[in-house]
């Protein structure tokens, strides 16, 4: 018996020893640290190859972006607005010695007296103190586990040094994704829903020929108003501002407001003056912005929703950095397929592939989105109330599109009767009209539109959604005319203002910034058309009695080549 006992003891001792040894080996194996290799999310993944070549590949300020890149030179500030494509490292002072010797400490020593604000900002950030609060500490832990690297501080070097090229970089969303992969992946997924989205803001800024036309006419500096918002493509700091990069800050509605405002999309105005926004303003200090949205106690920590709470909601209690996944009417510019049109809108999008087709508001996908909205609204409202409101908003949009159709018909008829004055043949070209057909192939522009551009050099009338919006961005000689501008305002400003008033439940904006001015512009269009027809009739009579009216002709009749625009560089 004793022997057996001894043997047993011996065996278990052996096993224990082996286990200890083995675990030691395993541990030693684990401790053998792999070198940290940053992995980045490619926000352009899934786009066709040509897309990267003209939007993602860094060219500094040497050339522009997009398919029309050769028709403008980016102004200096583009390097800060579109860092991925246009950033150029500093040239006045060679920073490579600090990079080579990895002297992280010296960045602060020099810059704290130059950019004091930026440095102090960073010192308040989770980057400076990754365990600043329990929530931030937990998030840091998750990041540490995912990248396999301990984080004590995220300093200037981590974000601003391109370790491969050994030069200073301006961080892009891709760079942020080295640690924040989940957020950047979510953000990049916006592109799967079509425009408008944040990822394609650069594209929608420069893939419109009036952008290049303003370069040709020496008006480029004015485009900063476009550039500043359309630079959300590969940057995180439009919402998480430099250098505190606070999630809590980005959860506040104000984070959206510097871009989401104004006559084309008065989101800030309509939200702020709605009951939602006013209650937020009154009780701001009771809102808990430190908490991730998914953990917010509705009612207790948010008495009313914020932009983020509604627009980042993905259904089922989840929130991501995709703001557009529930968008049905999107910006409100694309005509719905659910109504009948009298005007040329029935042919929209005229075979053009670069603009979105009509929206079926009741498609399965859109009905699904509607359910998510109702689910969201039902946090506080009855589902019947929520569904009713959305239905009434759709009705407004259908009506508004019918009014748009009515106005477009008036101008269609003017053009058909050759009574638009000055006529397309007598006036300046459509922006970029002389080269558009050379850059965009017939497959993209559609056979008919391509031929029209090619044969007239751009002297064609373009009205209505979406390309007729050029009337808000360009003024050539006699182009657009008053009637076209009125029409553009009607559908691009007032229709959309009414829509935002509805969507954000701000009654005054809905009516006085929306439907009322829309009706007024329709009146202007009709009245202007009558004047043109009347003038044409009078001219016809005068010509018949041998007194033809001599029209003022200016350079408008000259071709684009003869115009000899002053090159602004």
């Amino acid at each position, binding site marked *: 018996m004793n022997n057996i006992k001894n043997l047993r003891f011996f065996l278990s001792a052996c096993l224990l020893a082996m286990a200890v040894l083995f675990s030691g080996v395993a541990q030693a194996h684990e401790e053998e640290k792999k070198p940290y290799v940053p992995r980045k999310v490619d926000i352009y993944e899934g786009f066709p190859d040509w897309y990267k070549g003209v939007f993602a590949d860094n060219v500094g300020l040497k050339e522009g972006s997009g398919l029309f890149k050769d028709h403008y030179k980016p102004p200096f500030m583009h390097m800060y607005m579109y860092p991925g494509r246009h950033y150029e490292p500093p040239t006045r002072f060679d920073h490579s010695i600090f990079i080579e010797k990895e002297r992280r400490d010296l960045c602060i020593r020099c810059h704290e*007296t130059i950019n004091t604000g930026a440095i102090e900002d960073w010192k308040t950030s989770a980057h400076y103190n990754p365990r600043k609060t329990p929530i931030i500490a937990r998030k840091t832990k998750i990041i540490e586990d995912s990248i396999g690297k301990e984080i004590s501080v995220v300093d200037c070097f981590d974000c601003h040094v391109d370790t491969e090229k050994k030069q200073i970089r301006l961080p892009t969303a891709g760079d942020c994704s080295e640690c924040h992969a989940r957020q950047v992946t979510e953000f990049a997924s916006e592109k799967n829903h079509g425009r408008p989205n944040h990822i394609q803001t650069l594209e929608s800024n420069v893939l419109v020929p009036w952008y290049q036309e303003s370069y040709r006419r020496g008006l480029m500096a004015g485009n900063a108003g476009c550039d500043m918002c359309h630079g959300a493509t590969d940057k995180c700091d439009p919402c998480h501002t430099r250098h505190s990069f606070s999630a809590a800050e980005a959860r506040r509605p104000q984070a959206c407001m510097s871009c989401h405002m104004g006559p084309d999309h008065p989101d800030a105005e309509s939200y702020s003056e709605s009951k939602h926004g006013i209650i937020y303003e009154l009780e701001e200090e009771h809102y808990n912005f430190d908490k991730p949205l998914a953990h917010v106690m509705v009612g207790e920590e948010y008495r009313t929703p914020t932009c983020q709470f509604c627009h980042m909601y993905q259904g089922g209690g989840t929130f991501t950095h995709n703001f557009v996944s529930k968008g049905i009417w999107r910006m409100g510019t694309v005509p719905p397929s659910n109504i009948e049109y009298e005007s040329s809108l029935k042919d929209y999008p005229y075979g053009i592939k670069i603009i979105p087709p009509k929206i079926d508001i009741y498609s399965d996908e859109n009905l699904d989105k509607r359910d998510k909205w109702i689910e969201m609204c039902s946090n506080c409202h009855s589902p019947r109330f929520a569904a009713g409101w959305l239905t009434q908003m759709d009705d407004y949009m259908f009506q508004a599109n019918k009014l748009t159709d009515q106005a477009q018909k008036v101008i269609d008829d003017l053009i058909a009767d050759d009574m638009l004055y000055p006529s397309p043949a007598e006036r300046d070209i459509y922006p970029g009209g002389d080269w558009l057909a050379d850059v965009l192939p017939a497959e993209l522009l559609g056979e008919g539109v391509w031929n029209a551009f090619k044969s007239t050099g751009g002297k064609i009338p373009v009205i209505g959604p979406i390309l007729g919006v050029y009337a808000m961005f360009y003024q050539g000689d006699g182009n657009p005319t008053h009637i076209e501008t009125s029409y553009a305002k009607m559908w691009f400003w007032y229709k959309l203002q009414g829509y935002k008033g509805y969507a954000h439940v701000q009654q005054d904006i809905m009516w006085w910034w929306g439907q009322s001015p829309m009706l007024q512009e329709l009146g202007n269009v009709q009245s202007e058309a009558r004047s043109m027809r009347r003038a044409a009739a009078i001219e016809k009579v005068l010509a018949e009695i041998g007194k033809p009216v001599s029209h003022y002709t200016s350079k408008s009749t000259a071709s684009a080549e003869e115009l000899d625009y002053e090159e602004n560089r």
Partner: protein
Amino acid sequence: MGYTGRKKEVSKSINLCWRNILSGIIIAVFVTTTCLGSMVMAEGKLKPVSEAEFKKGKDVYDKYCAVCHGEEGDGYGELAHALYPKPRDFTKGQYKIRTNATGSLPTDADLIHVISVGIHGTSMIPWDILELDQIKSMLPVLKSFSEAWQYREPESPIAIGREVPSSQQSIARGKELYEQKECWKCHGENGHGDGPSSYDLADEWEIPIQAYDFTRASKFKGGATNHDIYLRFSTGMNGTPMPSFANELSDEDRWSLVHFVKSLAEQKEGHGHGE
């Protein structure tokens, strides 16, 4: 553009053409003696350096310093407009951080020290990132920017009196002196740099400057050790209204002032508002 070292050599060679061999020898002997003399004095007037050596220093200077201090050393480098405090203009030969008597040019060791440790509260970083040789090679370049170096010699470092240990007593004495010597007029009653005269202070370049805020703990321009601060009281800061108290106050009193102004920073830190 010429630099002083080179100009001198050119004029010498012209001289040689004019004179006969005898005068040539006399001059040669004279020059050699001067050189030897200055070498013996170690800190002598502008030491002649070879063109190659000078160029080596100038290259380092141009690469790392000129962007702020200017290629001509006038403080108007490309980035100067963005900086405050402004980069030093070397053309007046005025240097704040020294170990020798007020008004003197700095010693070589002073220059090397400041370059290596930088100046807190400014964009002058510690350039210990450069090799010591590189730093040394720049000294003739710095000196070439101002004529002062041709006419004057840096004085020897001052003698540093034995430090009196900090105590309630010495701090109290320092406070007394702070009031008596009217330090508060610029630096403020509580050392915040907000005294009545602080609002229109300017340096010799007529650039507005601020009286130091002693509560900023470790940001003393010339270093935050007791020894550093003692030197500021004893050498003054050339080009600024900050005088030297070497002749007015005893060693012990100057140490007392050091302890007092340091105590101002500690008070601040005690309130947990430090970094």
